């Protein structure tokens, strides 16, 4: 580098989790960012959070100019996210009520010259470095003259540039009315960073998404990325840069079923994820229960997330196969959380699972069933969420077990609704075998990354003394299940004394 470029792009963290990932570092410093979106998309919250974060994390004073809502409402809004607005207002933030009272009459053209002069004085008085113009379109539309509106925007942009301020402009665009978008169609050209927020309804569930349209001089994620407005503000569900190198697997974690551990060569690898698929009633939750009980018995913190089934029912059902979770729930070692599938989008589910993980700090997690995610908010979004959940757990060294329902009746159709099987480390399939008027459960390991595993189909036996697998099929012999197996075992027992560990119930 021969000489230092004064125009070199610097960035400031947006303070929004995930947004910095998709913009490769945050907002352009001392430049203009444009946030566009329909009504209720979260533009104001986005902008406010960026301002609050700059004040809180970097002690950068800022100004919020509110053209639509009253400043008081915006402050109150910020307080609902737990941001300490009164303290910030006292020292670092200034809110300007720039909404026009309804009784104000317009009689001719006006401009922003005075406002910008006032703001410049205020900014230098308080040392503000970042400024939000929220709903700038509300003021500009009063001009009712496209040429004048354009001129004022350029005036604003120029003012931001000369005062070396980081500017955030929000403006409404209406997807249904292309005219409004066109009206301010030049805005993205003017801004250094243009971001589009949107909200749509998919399967009756509202899904919010953010897309970086442009970012002058910086790489950014082109795709639309989901976001939620949670209890602490905006969180963008970035899937960028979270694909870590798989850690070398070493430590094993018991599945809670001794014979299954043997089949896997010692259990799951610590920090990996396992998928258990099977049709309804095949016993997926029971395997999950066995795994979580084993974790608690080792003294590890655990989290059991179930969709559409309450914890009490699960605990009761598991107690019939001698899995007792009650004491671990009582001690706090285990937390069980029942989530209603339809109550939220898959993105919101992800955020709440993330929160639960942060609160419980588990080493072992069960999500039962993961396929519930696919039922709301579209399969693609759910798949992305599933992936991020997997990476989240892997990064945290959490060993996670997912169950997934196979929707089809065909038991040979070995795919999952979310196609997570391709990214899961281990995959166990439970199928039904119908023979001689009996329905028996058969378990097989379809894949187990990084370790040798048994390829055998084994009968899965649930009984009042526990869960286990039947003996493997003898070489050359027939696979016997249920009554036939028991008869054979009894016969063998009479002969040489070897038998399955678990009694028939």
């Amino acid at each position, binding site marked *: 580098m021969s000489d230092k470029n004064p125009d070199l792009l610097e960035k400031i963290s947006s303070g929004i989790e995930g947004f910095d990932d998709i913009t490769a570092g945050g907002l352009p410093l001392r430049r203009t960012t444009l946030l566009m979106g329909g009504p209720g998309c979260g533009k104001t919250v986005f902008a406010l959070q960026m301002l609050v974060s700059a004040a809180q994390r970097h002690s950068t004073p800022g100004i919020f100019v509110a053209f639509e809502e009253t400043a008081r409402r915006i402050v109150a809004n910020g307080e609902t996210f737990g941001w300490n607005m009164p303290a910030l207002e006292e020292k670092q933030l200034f809110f*300007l*009520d*720039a909404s*026009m*009272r309804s*009784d*104000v*009459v*317009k*009689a*001719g*053209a*006006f*401009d*922003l*010259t*005075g*406002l910008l*002069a*006032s*703001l*410049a*004085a*205020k900014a230098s*008085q308080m040392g503000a470095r970042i400024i939000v113009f929220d709903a700038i379109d509300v*003021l500009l539309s*009063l001009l009712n003259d496209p040429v004048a509106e354009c001129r004022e925007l350029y005036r604003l942009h120029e003012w931001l540039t000369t005062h070396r301020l980081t500017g955030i402009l929000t403006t409404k665009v209406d997807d249904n009315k292309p005219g409004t978008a066109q009206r301010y169609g030049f805005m993205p050209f003017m801004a250094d960073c243009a971001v589009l927020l949107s909200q749509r309804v998919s399967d009756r569930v509202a899904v919010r998404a953010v897309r970086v349209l442009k970012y002058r001089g910086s790489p950014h994620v082109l795709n639309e990325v989901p976001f939620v407005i949670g209890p602490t503000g905006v969180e963008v569900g970035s899937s960028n840069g979270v694909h870590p190198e798989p850690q070398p697997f070493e430590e094993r974690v018991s599945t809670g079923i001794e014979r299954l551990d043997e089949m896997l060569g010692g259990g799951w690898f610590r920090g990996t994820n396992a998928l258990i698929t099977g049709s309804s009633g095949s016993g997926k939750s029971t395997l999950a229960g066995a795994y979580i009980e084993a974790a608690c018995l080792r003294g590890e913190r655990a989290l059991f997330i179930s969709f559409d089934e309450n914890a009490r029912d699960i605990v009761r059902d598991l107690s019939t196969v001698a899995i007792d979770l009650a004491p671990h729930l009582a001690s706090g070692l285990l937390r069980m959380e029942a989530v209603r599938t339809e109550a939220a989008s898959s993105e919101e589910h992800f955020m709440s699972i993330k929160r639960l993980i942060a609160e419980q700090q588990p080493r072992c997690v069960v999500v039962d069933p993961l396929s519930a995610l696919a039922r709301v908010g579209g399969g693609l979004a759910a798949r992305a969420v599933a992936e991020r959940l997997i990476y989240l757990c892997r990064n945290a060294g959490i060993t996670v077990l997912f169950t997934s329902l196979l929707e089809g009746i065909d038991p040979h159709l070995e795919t999952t609704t979310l196609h997570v099987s391709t990214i899961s480390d281990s995959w166990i399939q439970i199928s039904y075998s119908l023979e001689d008027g009996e329905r028996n459960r058969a378990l097989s390991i379809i894949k187990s990354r990084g370790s040798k595993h048994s390829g055998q189909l084994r009968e899965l036996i649930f009984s009042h003394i526990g869960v286990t697998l039947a003996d493997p099929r003898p070489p050359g012999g027939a696979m016997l299940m249920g009554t036939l197996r028991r008869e054979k075992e009894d016969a063998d027992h009479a002969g040489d004394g070897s038998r399955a560990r678990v009694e028939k119930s």
Partner: protein
Amino acid sequence: MNESNPANHSNGAHLFRLYVAGGAPNSVRAIANLYFICRRHFPESHRIEIIDVLKEPLRALAEAIVVTPTLVKVSPGPEQQIIGNLSEEDEVLRALGLPQTESKESK
């Protein structure tokens, strides 16, 4: 006090406060328009206070002035804000509660 009929422009002093931004075109126009309107409608009883936001930038913020030019009719009450360069005379008169000029009247 005159509160019953603000349209009656022959009584009571009209006090106006006009916020401008230095020599910005809209501001210059607003000053001229305001003097013209006042001379025409309140020839004997008006007072105009002009505040240059460029010289007193923080005052405008404190007084909740957003755009320039902004005209505030301080008295007679109630207070009324009119934004713009006041070139739309009918709008100004309507806001002040005065009858509009003859040319625009349609009866």
